[in-house]
């Protein structure tokens, strides 16, 4: 490679400085646009006695749809966002399945894929029972 002339070297220096100034000036933007994330507050799903076996209850946890399902004595909570394309699923007490209205995805009562194009299970959410028998979703 030929030795750069003084003019070329200065142009390169000028270009680099201008580009660096531009990058520096824009650098606050990603910090500003980064999503502000706050931890989700736990949410009540009502009294355990109000939820019959095989029944489900929809609620909002951390601003996202969630569903609590009772299977016998077990109570399970799921993020009700379909793991396929992100539509909200709903619980069908008749079929004992979560159904997605968008692409006909199906999940079993344990959240496992049961049909349609879904591959990943529904995300489980922590669930706790208060001494008074109230169902709480979240930590």
């Amino acid at each position, binding site marked *: 490679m030929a030795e750069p002339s003084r003019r070329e070297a200065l142009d390169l220096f000028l270009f680099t400085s201008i580009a660096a100034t531009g990058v520096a000036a824009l650098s606050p933007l990603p910090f500003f*646009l*980064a*999503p*502000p*994330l*706050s931890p*989700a507050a736990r949410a009540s799903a009502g009294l355990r006695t109000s939820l019959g076996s095989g029944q489900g209850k*929809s*609620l*909002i946890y*951390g*601003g*996202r*749809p969630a569903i609590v399902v009772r299977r016998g004595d077990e109570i399970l909570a799921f993020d*009700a*966002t379909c793991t*396929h*394309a*992100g*539509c*909200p*699923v*709903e619980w069908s007490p008749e079929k004992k399945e979560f159904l997605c*209205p*968008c*692409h*006909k995805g199906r999940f079993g009562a344990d959240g496992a894929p049961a049909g*349609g*194009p879904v*591959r990943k299970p529904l995300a489980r959410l922590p669930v706790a029972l208060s001494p008074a028998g109230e169902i709480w979703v979240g930590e």
Partner: protein
Amino acid sequence: MNRLSAWLRDRTGLPSLGETLRGPASWNAAFGGVVGVLVLVQGMTGISLAAYYKPTLEGAYPSVQFILFDLRLGWLIRSLHLWGQHLLVLSLLSWLGFGLVRRSYEKPRELSWFLLVGALFTVLLAGQTGQVLPLDEDGWNGALIASNVAGPAAPWVLGGRSVSDFTVGRFFAAHALVLPLVWGMALLGHHALHRRHPEFPGGTYLERLGLGAALALALLSTLAVAFPLGVGPRGSATGVSALAKPHWYLLPVYQILKFAQVWQANLALGAVFLFLLSLPFQKRAVALAGSVVVIGTLVALGVLGALAR
């Protein structure tokens, strides 16, 4: 009037409306008028809607209802904006289809072609971001689906873990500021390049652009008045539509998603756009065969998606 027009042309290099187009006679130039007038309508109705729309979680839906039911002619402005989007996508698709037939992508018009493909892509994005804004059931689903398509970047799309005030703000900024700037510049660039490499002569700007614009306006007004587009039921984090289908132009993606994962659908859609962008560098036979296969597949998937229950 002539002196003013001559002064303007001298200072700006803009064409005179009576200027005869160079090249073989064609109605292709009418597409410029169609798309141009639709862009103007989208701009004017969009700005008008933005004057009343409230980009917040609680305020969005009531403000759209206010526009529709309380404001004088609000229903018309919104109907024009929604139908304008449908017609804009349709006319860009037809324009690109026309370009495929005429091989408008060949040297030296590769950049014009890229800009048109880019305009289509951003107009599709504008449609999707706009659909979210009323926060009816479709809007909620649209936001959730968009965040899912984004994968690990989902919090950046939603502005958090869930649909919130920040989500509406982001979609509004993208829909009303970022995307119009991008597709506006793409179309202006296309126009500038078209001046440098004119393709379809015969007829004047006034005849071709003007007629295209008038036809588009007539069709748009008829549709907007005869079939006013409203707003769906208010959405919520738990609300589920019985059947959520996207707009007609995304039905192929919808149909693919019935048996494929989101990344595969993204890949397929990306492949279609890459194919369009690669056309200037393909042999003619490959370009022709590829176009037939791509268009045939998209139409077939779209019809299946439209018929699906």
